[in-house]
């Protein structure tokens, strides 16, 4: 790897480095702690790349604005936190429905409501999955280090473009504000994916017709294709329809959009999992405490391992299930009251016991707390 630069940076800055490296050239948003640095850095950097930044009047506008920009062919990103992410939900559903590529960075803070602006939390896991109304597809990626903020933002932009979908990067405040030394690769070495553009003539163009890829081709506004975009159920020409059969097909396709790409989309990491009798399932900053706890416990001869979902949605279900041979008990430590625990329970309850370790008071879950929990279930 050719290193472009080495620096001691925050997770939030690493997200902006990833966004710029992946080709994001448009940002719109509204400032909110603990995500504000992302807006500040993008306002400084984007015009240097010929890109655009605008501080909108609220988060709803920020989300809507990036979707407008995405339709002209730009790669787009917005960032926010808690209250702001709640405001964005209607437009995130629009992006899922109209299949507009976009990335939303959520630096999670303690909720509900204004909650704890500078407090860390992982309370938006279910919001990321089901925050907007109606069934819809979504991808959410969850970094555990500053470097991963960089790489996963690149991945998020690539996924958004390739699969024409909104993609979340779910940080927690600890990851967003933590500083680590990272080596950023040269731009040429970063794999970049661009959305598929139509190869047919404007006369032949049907914006939502699909081939075996399941992902329709997307024309930039202003290139003569003159297509119609709507959040209403629409047929392959893009125009609204009330025909139940078409509605049925459209939603089924949307909900299955990623299934043939699972190998590519589902990311996770395993640590000391082969002989593990107790398995920790942890993500984000909590996974760091889990790794620390595992080291101590292993020194005491306790067989503990870690399964760290990096793609939280869709959840790497098969991968987790395949690791349960020797596992007697799964513990899910998370800074909420069991949002991912529910999902793990759903997947694993026939094979093993599942317990949660929850802490929602603005403090991180410590290795000692995880160690105590492991010893409790032994």
């Amino acid at each position, binding site marked *: 790897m050719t290193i472009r630069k080495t620096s001691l940076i925050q997770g939030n800055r690493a997200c902006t480095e990833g966004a710029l490296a992946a080709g994001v050239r448009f940002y*719109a948003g509204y400032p909110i702690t603990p995500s504000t640095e992302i807006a500040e850095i993008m306002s400084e950097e984007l015009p240097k790349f*010929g890109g655009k930044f605008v501080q909108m009047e609220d988060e*709803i506008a920020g989300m809507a604005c990036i979707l*407008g920009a995405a*339709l*002209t062919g730009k790669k787009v990103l917005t960032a926010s936190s808690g209250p702001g992410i709640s405001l964005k939900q209607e437009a995130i559903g629009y992006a899922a429905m109209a299949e507009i590529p976009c990335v939303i960075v959520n630096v999670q803070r303690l909720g509900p409501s204004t909650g704890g602006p500078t407090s860390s939390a992982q309370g938006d896991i279910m919001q990321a999955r089901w925050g907007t109304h109606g069934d819809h597809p979504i991808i959410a990626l969850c970094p555990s280090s500053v470097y991963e903020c960089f790489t996963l933002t690149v991945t998020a932009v690539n996924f958004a473009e390739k699969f024409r979908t909104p993609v979340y990067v779910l940080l927690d405040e600890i990851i967003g504000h933590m500083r680590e030394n990272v080596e950023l690769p040269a731009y040429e070495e970063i794999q970049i994916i661009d959305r598929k553009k139509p190869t047919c003539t404007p006369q032949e163009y049907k914006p939502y017709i699909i081939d075996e890829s399941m992902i329709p081709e997307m024309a930039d*506004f*202003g290139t003569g294709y003159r297509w119609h*975009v709507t959040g*209403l159920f629409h047929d392959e020409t893009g125009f609204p329809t009330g025909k139940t059969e078409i509605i049925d097909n459209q939603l089924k396709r949307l909900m299955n959009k990623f299934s043939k790409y699972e190998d590519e989309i589902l990311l996770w990491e395993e640590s000391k999992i082969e002989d593990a009798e107790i398995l920790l399932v942890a993500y984000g900053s909590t996974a760091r405490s889990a790794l620390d706890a595992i080291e101590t416990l292993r020194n005491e001869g306790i067989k503990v391992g870690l399964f760290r979902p990096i793609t939280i949605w869709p959840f790497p279900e098969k991968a987790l299930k395949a690791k349960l041979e020797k596992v007697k008990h799964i513990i899910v430590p998370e800074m909420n009251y069991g949002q991912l625990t529910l999902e793990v329970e759903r997947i694993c309850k026939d094979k093993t016991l599942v317990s949660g370790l929850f802490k929602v008071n603005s403090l991180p879950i410590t290795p000692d707390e995880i160690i105590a929990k492991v010893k409790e279930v032994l």
Partner: protein
Amino acid sequence: MRPDLHHLFRMDKLPHIWCPGCGHGIITRAIGEAIADSDIDLEQTVIVSGIGCSSRAPGYMNFDTLHTLHGRALAFATGVKLSNPQLNVFVLTGDGDATAIGGNHFIHAARRNINLNVILFNNNIYGMTGGQYSPLTPTGKMATTSPYGNLENNFDIPVLAIASGASYVARGTAFHDKLLVDCIKEGIKNKGFSLIEAMSMCPTSYGRRNKMGTAADMLNDLKTSAVNINVAKKLTPEKLEGKFLIGTLHHKPYREFTEEYDKLIDRLRKEGD
């Protein structure tokens, strides 16, 4: 419809969904005429709308068209225009869409003086949802959610737009459609935020409940209530009581947002060289 307008519309999508007597069709045609009479590249033209009966208009127009969320047309349009300033961007919106749920975006888009051509279809009601009162339903008038008469006050849309920073502001009506076409053409020429309030009419959800007669009677009301601003200058305040002004109400070009942004990019590029 003028035959030379056919290529501007998706003729295969007609007939439209609007009720007989709805004013929205006249206004949509006026927008087509204004585009036909202006020297703009049709392939570089995007029409954005929110949600409402009026916001269905872009679906019939043969351009890149973006039917968004209730109230958010201006926020989407800001993204389209800022990311590609070469595009001519029109925003078609209703009185509820633009001044109730989208009121915040309205004043801020005007404040930025971003080069958008906004045609606000004002039918004094929420048409699509069956006649609830809007910020433009006159005080005292009936709506399904003001069954005892509307207690609230109204916005004066042009005043709101001017105070917020719009550089071109005009008003036309479904009756004065020639004037409306002229206003939209002026708006297209203006390099900045242009707001054209187009007085429409909704016989179904507003006229009927307020006993305003037929669609023709409502059109006649528009005719008699409107006074051209040039004529109004010669009239006494008494004569203008209960009337509204039509024509160009404000035109003051000044720095436009996307141009300023491009200048910034140029400056940074030069500093970087």
